[in-house]
């Protein structure tokens, strides 16, 4: 008996799946497949059920609303991949916005210089969080709850709760402007996401973040500068929150003390929906932003569908749970099929 007849020249092919299941399997092999599938499903259902959903105006307002929460989500997702959390991101955004308003209106500083100073302030606040967490060996969750109180309190001390009006119109296009129908804040979000995604995927720094998130002790033994990277991640989250805060000031035309109040839990939920593990080491900022798109879409359709305000939390929470479950169940099903 010859060898040619004993061993086949080509490896055995796996059983051929039906086309739809094959497409689903291909989707699920992609780490973002689940969230994209959930997004497409919600988008399709929304298009079919509401005549107002797929209009230019509605797409524009959804993109603009996404920009602010999306920026904060990028920062929070980096921290979550690192195994950390920052619950003061909303307060940092609010503090940066208020400081910007005060510098521009009360101090009469050049608006662009004010914006740069606010971004530096946000970065410094984030960095301070990181330094305190790494040097005092504190849990990020506990420390940032306290720091949220400090930054939020500083807003009230500075403003006495009153909004700062008269923000120069020079910066209004940053929040309200459109470029070929696309809101400027959304373009800022895309630019930031592009840079962060590049760093996370294509540079050693990104790989270090995943390594630290997976096993910080192992990363430390490998010689990685774990504390420095954690501080840098908190500073990045602070910078992005400040950017969101400033864009919101430009959008509203006033510096509101309430800016950032709703930016605490939504970015965490978005990141989890987008596949970022709360235990660290898994997920991507792109997935997190897609999670934010899902949340934004749900908030949008709740109004478009005319759901009672008393049911809004139930419905949005329920859809979020469905979106996460859909991803998990689909993966389990395909795993079993294989």
């Amino acid at each position: 008996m010859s060898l040619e007849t004993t061993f086949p020249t080509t490896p055995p092919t796996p059983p051929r799946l039906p086309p739809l299941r094959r497409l689903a399997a291909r989707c699920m092999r992609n780490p973002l497949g689940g969230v994209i599938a959930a997004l497409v499903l919600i988008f399709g259902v929304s298009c079919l059920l509401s005549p107002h959903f797929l209009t230019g105006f509605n797409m524009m307002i959804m993109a603009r609303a996404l920009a602010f929460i999306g920026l904060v989500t990028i920062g929070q997702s980096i921290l979550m991949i690192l195994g950390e959390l920052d619950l003061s991101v909303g307060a940092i955004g609010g503090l940066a916005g208020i400081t910007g308003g005060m510098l521009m209106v009360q101090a009469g500083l050049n608006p662009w210089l004010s914006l740069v100073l606010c971004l530096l302030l946000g970065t410094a606040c984030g960095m301070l969080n990181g330094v305190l967490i790494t040097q005092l060996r504190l849990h990020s969750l506990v420390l940032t709850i306290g720091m949220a109180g400090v930054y939020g309190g500083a807003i009230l001390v500075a403003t006495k709760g009153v909004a700062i009006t008269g923000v120069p119109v020079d910066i209004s296009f940053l929040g309200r402007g459109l470029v070929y129908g696309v809101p400027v804040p959304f373009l800022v979000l895309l630019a930031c996401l592009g840079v962060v995604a590049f760093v996370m995927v294509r540079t050693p720094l990104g790989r270090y973040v995943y390594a630290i998130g997976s096993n910080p002790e192992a990363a430390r033994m490998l010689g990685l500068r774990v504390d420095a990277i954690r501080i840098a991640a908190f500073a990045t989250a602070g910078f992005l929150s400040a950017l969101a805060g400033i864009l919101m000031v430009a959008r509203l035309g006033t510096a509101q003390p309430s800016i950032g109040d709703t930016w605490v839990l939504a970015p965490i939920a978005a990141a989890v929906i987008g596949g970022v593990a709360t235990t660290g080491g898994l997920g991507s900022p792109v997935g997190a932003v897609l999670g934010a798109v899902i949340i934004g879409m749900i908030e949008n359709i709740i109004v478009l569908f005319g759901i009672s305000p008393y049911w809004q939390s139930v419905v949005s929470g329920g859809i979020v749970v469905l979106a996460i479950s859909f991803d998990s169940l689909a993966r389990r099903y395909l795993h079993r099929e294989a």
Partner: protein
Amino acid sequence: MKTAFLLATALVLAPMAVRAADDHAPLRFVLIPKTVHPWFDKVNTGAQAAADLLGKTTGRKVEIEYRAPETADVSSQNDIIERAIATHPDGLILDLLDEKGNHATMLEAVDEKVPMTVFDSLPPEGMDVTAVGADFCEQGTIAAQRLAGLIGEKGEVAIMIGVPTAPNHTRRAECERAAFARYPQIRVVATGIDNDSIETAQKQASAIMQAHPDLAGWVACDAAGPVGIGQAIRESGRTGKVKEVGLDNLNDMIQLIRDGVADSSASSRPEMQGYWAVIAAWQRALGQKTPKYIDTGIDVLTKKNI
């Protein structure tokens, strides 16, 4: 491929088809308050009553869609207003959190030709919008003057501010302080912040009364505050010794007046605000001119008239 093409076509054409069918639809107004709160439920009740009346008398149904932000935050409210604009209603009825912060979004409604009416707040300057409501300053002044009378125009008083970032709450507080300042023997010894929460108001009021045992009376700046104050007065056993003039007409507030814990309440008329806001919105939807301001007045609720 064919299926995908048909699905895409259906998605693009569906909005047009439904919009064409909308020509004979009822008049639809979207009511957006500051946040979810029992006071706004009363506004909604008045709005629904006006819609029913208009529907019966004109033969064309009027629908009110109530869309409340979960938190009293300008950007959240703007998002809801924008989403409502996307549905192209016949009118928006808004309680603005901050007319300057809401301005850009209101301009979008103007661009999309959606008429607006505001209630319980004032529109941005230069905008042709009817405002329905009561004067916040007058309401605070009435409460403070009544308390001054109850305590013999002398003694220590405290003010409970609602949400420090809410312009109507801070305005009432300013006017209450100004009213007390006219009485040389009255001293404002404490200011609490309840964030429009009954529980917080109760805690704050209890602590303030502990710190100021000679406190003679309370006024508040929001609807939840006076309820918490009343509960704190009752718990401390100082009913009758510490006077309270409340604000607005939540059921709990009315009960406190019935029980003799609170003397009275300077109440705006939320049902009437909702009612007249719908009437104004309906007139605007029909292209008619409407008044610049509709004052729905303030009631002083006492044991005798509730």
